[in-house]
């Protein structure tokens, strides 16, 4: 082989050939990919159900029950909150709150950027984390516009202070070195559906934060079902989503608080 490459004439031809072959190879690979890659990670999910949450800010009192129930049911480290309640401005003389779970975006930046597909879409729109696959690079955390992801800087050991008062753990604790976030209590939804229940109506099929809310500020249901509570509420009321201008398409909708509603 080496003799061959010592001749300049052959070398140039080979180089040119190599270049051409490379170009052809790349073109073929790109073409094949364009044709075959109909299902990419960024394809918006189109399952039978499309879960969504509606939060009525005129009803939220900032009691933090949702946070606590979430901590218990998902066995979350007390240093981490999947479901945080943030104080916002005032309407009249009433304090307004923004409870913030994961937005389960239709075009989720975390899913797009994850190098190993540890973040992915379920068919029902839930943005899931595969904690066994995640390498802990934290690109998703950097990309999330809602600070919805918390990294396990340390291993969560010991007792969960929210258990048993606020519920019992339904999922495994996440290991050290991966980020974690709200999952819309997928375990409850899946079990409930298997039992023939309807998420959003039957508490046994509904996320913990929705069940616990004492004022009924949180609603959950299927956007594909026009008769579901969330579909009707969104149809009849003005609503907004967080950082909507980014085009992420959150599945958590907020009903803004108006002065007259809050007083009532």
């Amino acid at each position, binding site marked *: *082989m*080496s*003799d061959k*490459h*010592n*001749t*300049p*004439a052959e*070398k140039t031809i080979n*180089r040119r050939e*190599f*270049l051409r072959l*490379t170009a052809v190879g790349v073109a073929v690979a790109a073409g094949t*990919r364009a044709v075959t*890659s109909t299902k*990419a*990670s*960024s394809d918006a999910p189109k399952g039978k159900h499309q879960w969504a949450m509606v939060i009525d800010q005129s009803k939220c009192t900032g009691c933090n029950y949702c946070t606590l129930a979430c901590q218990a049911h998902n066995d979350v480290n007390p240093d981490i909150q999947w479901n945080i309640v*943030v104080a*916002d401005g005032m309407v009249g003389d009433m304090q307004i709150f*923004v409870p*913030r779970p994961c937005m389960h975006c239709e075009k989720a*930046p975390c899913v*797009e*950027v*994850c*190098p*190993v*597909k*540890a973040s992915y879409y379920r068919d029902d729109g839930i943005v899931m984390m595969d904690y066994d*696959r*995640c*390498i*802990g*690079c*934290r*690109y998703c*955390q*950097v*990309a*999330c*516009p*809602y*600070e919805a*992801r*918390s*990294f*396990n*800087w*340390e*291993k969560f050991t010991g007792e969960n202070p929210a258990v048993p008062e606020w519920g019992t753990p339904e999922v495994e604790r996440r*290991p*050290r*070195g*991966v980020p974690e976030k709200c999952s819309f209590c997928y375990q409850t939804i899946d079990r409930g559906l298997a039992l023939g229940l309807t998420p959003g109506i039957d508490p046994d099929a509904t996320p913990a934060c929705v069940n616990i809310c004492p004022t009924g500020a949180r609603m959950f249901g299927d956007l594909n079902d026009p008769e579901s509570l969330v579909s009707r509420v969104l149809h009849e009321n003005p609503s*907004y989503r*967080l*950082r909507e201008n*980014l*085009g992420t398409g959150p599945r958590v909708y907020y009903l803004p608080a108006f002065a007259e509603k809050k007083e009532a």
Partner: protein
Amino acid sequence: MLKKILTPWTAWLGFLGIILLGGLIAGILVFWKGLGITNLTDLVPWGLWITIDLSSIALGAGAFSLCAGVYLFGLKRYQPIARTATFVGLIGYTMATLALILDIGKPERFWHSLVYWNTHSLLWEVTMCVVLYLTVLVFEAMPIIANLEWLRKRLPKIAAMMERVHHYAPFLAIVGLGLSSLHQSSLGATYGVIKARPFWFKPEMSVLFMLSAIVGGISLTLFASMLASRLTSKAKTNDALIERVAHFVGYLLIGYFYFRAWDALSTTYTYDPGRSEGLNLITKGPLAFNFWIVEMLFGMIVPMIILLYKPARTNRFWRMVALLLVAAGVVAFRWDTNITGLLVVMPYVPGQAIAYTSYKPSLIEIMAGAAIIAYGLTAFSLGVKYLRVVDHSLIEEEHAKVKVEAVEAVGI
């Protein structure tokens, strides 16, 4: 007896050894206790180590740029410098790998990035390119490693085989150019696609990363060669060659400065939530010194003048200063870019004000980071001493030999 042992060389190795030992301890602590012992937070999840990772890749870019120049654009006489650059590149990319292994939360799953593909992720692309390019660099560096005296004596056949890889240099240069162009710019795009952080979200990011990498990578290689030739007789440089490449770096700097300055300037015209706050951080805030002095003044303008003004350029000391400043400026650019985007905390609650957070690397992070750099210095020092990495006379002879053989083979 003591005098015999304590030479500048052993003192240097001892100094590096101490830093490496500190890093080893820090590394073991990180693997044992987790990233909780760093000062990284959920708001600033990328810090010092990411900067070291980005910088070593950027400063390793001399390898692909110079190899492309030598083997693809026919600038054969610069081959000795490309040879040094290849070795510097190999060191840079292994440094980056070390930094990444430390930085990821699940180091034992590093192989997941090769097995589970998300082709939409820029980090996936960067990982694939870096792994493939590291392989290319290993092949490119084989003729250099074949210089090891021990290898030549003990395994002459293998050494000869490794040396023959030299003949495939043009092919490796093509692959290297492609892979490097991809991941050097994609590292910029890694930041550039993050819409949630307006300071990063712009298409120029990839162009700036690519340009700064070429400028910084060539500069570091030239600086390292010159420094080595000053310190030891093992390194032999052809100063005219280095000076000519340094002159070229001066012109490259004009291009880099043009893009960088316009990029910064264009963000000043209107208030843009997040972006303007980021601009404040680098122009008036805690990063102002880095931006104005390290990046702009000493990272671009001063070296540009030195490298383009002949009397200054031909002075070896000032040329070395200029080249080092360029490399430092590129590191500062990586640090500023990464940290500014993270320090500006964009509110997700409507109507809330944009906040700032802060980050200072912990002692553990500094110790481990210093050890990664010390590893690079050790590898280069050993390379100069035992592999004749900086030896501009060596390759020229080989080249002459190849040329003669070629003429005979053609049979003129």
